[in-house]
């Protein structure tokens, strides 16, 4: 019993600083938001069960995020099976540095990124869910978890090169999605020649 108590204490000591990031990662990744708590619960319980295999001094953050990642995949797979169809995913167009999309709208975003907070918060969340699972995981692990490429490769279980291409593709698709949806809806002001903003 004492061992169980010690194990629990040590586990919680590692876990507590990561709770916010883990929850954010799940919330932005799970298709069915009602399952976020279940996914977290399952991931943490499985990690705790295997905590005996964790070597102190190694990377607990990457270790526990891997359980979360696997839980998310499992949950989303079940969701898609229930729907009997994949979420609509646009084909990725890779270009290493030309970020694509509507140039004037992209220019607006680049000049005034604070517009994101005013106009595009929902679009961003939607755009993340439209990404391919690996691309989404890589983008969120980088953004929310602040992991290095090597750590992301371990968590997601893909080669380092795949992490780099996934991240590049995900970032590009996020920008394309933002400019496309907001440009189409007229929510994002276009940049005029004199630098002032105007709605189309």
């Amino acid at each position, binding site marked *: *019993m*004492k*061992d*169980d*108590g*010690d194990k*629990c*204490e040590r*586990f*919680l000591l590692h876990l507590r600083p990561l*709770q*916010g990031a*883990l*929850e*954010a990662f799940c*919330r*932005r990744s799970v298709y069915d938001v009602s399952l*976020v*708590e279940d996914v*977290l*619960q399952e991931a*943490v*319980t499985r990690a*705790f069960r295997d905590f005996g295999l964790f070597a102190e001094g190694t990377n607990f953050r990457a270790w526990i995020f891997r359980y979360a990642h696997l839980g998310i995949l499992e949950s989303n797979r079940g969701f898609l099976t229930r729907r009997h169809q994949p979420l609509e995913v646009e084909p990725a167009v890779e270009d*290493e*540095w030309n*970020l694509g999309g509507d140039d004037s709208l992209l220019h607006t*975003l*680049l*000049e005034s*990124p*604070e517009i*994101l*907070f005013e106009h*595009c*918060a929902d679009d*961003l*969340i939607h755009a*993340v869910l439209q990404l391919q699972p690996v691309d989404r995981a890589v983008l*969120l692990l*980088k*953004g*929310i978890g602040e992991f*290095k*490429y090597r750590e992301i490769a371990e968590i997601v279980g893909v080669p380092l090169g795949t992490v*780099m291409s996934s*991240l*590049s593709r995900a*970032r590009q698709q*996020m*920008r394309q999605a933002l400019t496309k949806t907001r440009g189409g809806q007229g929510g994002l002001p276009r940049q005029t020649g004199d630098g002032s903003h105007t709605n189309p």
Partner: protein
Amino acid sequence: MNCTQARQHWHLFHDSEGDAELHLQVNEHLEHCPECARWFQQQIVLEEAITHSLVSGMEPTAAIWSRIEQQLVPPQPARIKKWLLFGSAALTLLVASLLIAVSIENSSSPAPELAALSVAVHDKLTSGREEPNFVSSSHVDIEDYLKQHVSFPVRCPPREDAGFEARGGGTCRLANDSAAYVVGQVDGESVSLFILSRDSLSHFPELQAIPQRQRTRHQRHGAHDILLMEFDQNLVLAVGKVRAERLQRLLDAYGSYPHDHSVKSVRQRAS
């Protein structure tokens, strides 16, 4: 490094990845190229804004994490002081005494402890989480198995003529008492029979309150019906989600078959 090469590597530069040589070259280029320097700055600010948008308002939900942590905490704290241990023991004794007193006083109250324990084992056996120790559809073989594995007398379980299709049997512990069980089906529904020594009555104080004139006792635990009967040297419980009359028929059939294994003898002779 030209502009195209520099911009091709902005992800690595932004994420502090890649080797030092690459960062050195990109930095050198940015020092001499104001356009690229501005371009890099814009990309970085936009990426940070996107990331910030994704994580904003994402504080951990205290209620969720409280529930998760509660699941992890072992049932008893690891570091317990001696006085707390003795205090708890004394309190437990006091509560137990009170419960016994109340139980004896109120003879119509249910027997939740034995009921809950038997339903828990029944659920494990019928949900597939646990297989019976001895899998067989032969009532005689199950009876033989039980007799070899429990220290108290066991009579033959109900057979097909009582509408019971046996699936297997085994032994388990109900609180601190050993019990034999037989699992099977009645009308397509899973039913378990638990057989304890009559001596176990004294370990379940709530059962001592059953009036002697009352041959069987019916109670419900969740969706389960439970029928309890004292028979010969046994205490027998029938548990399942079937009507009480069907459980009663099983209890009536328990032990009503000949002791000499005549069926088995006939079967062995025939083979």
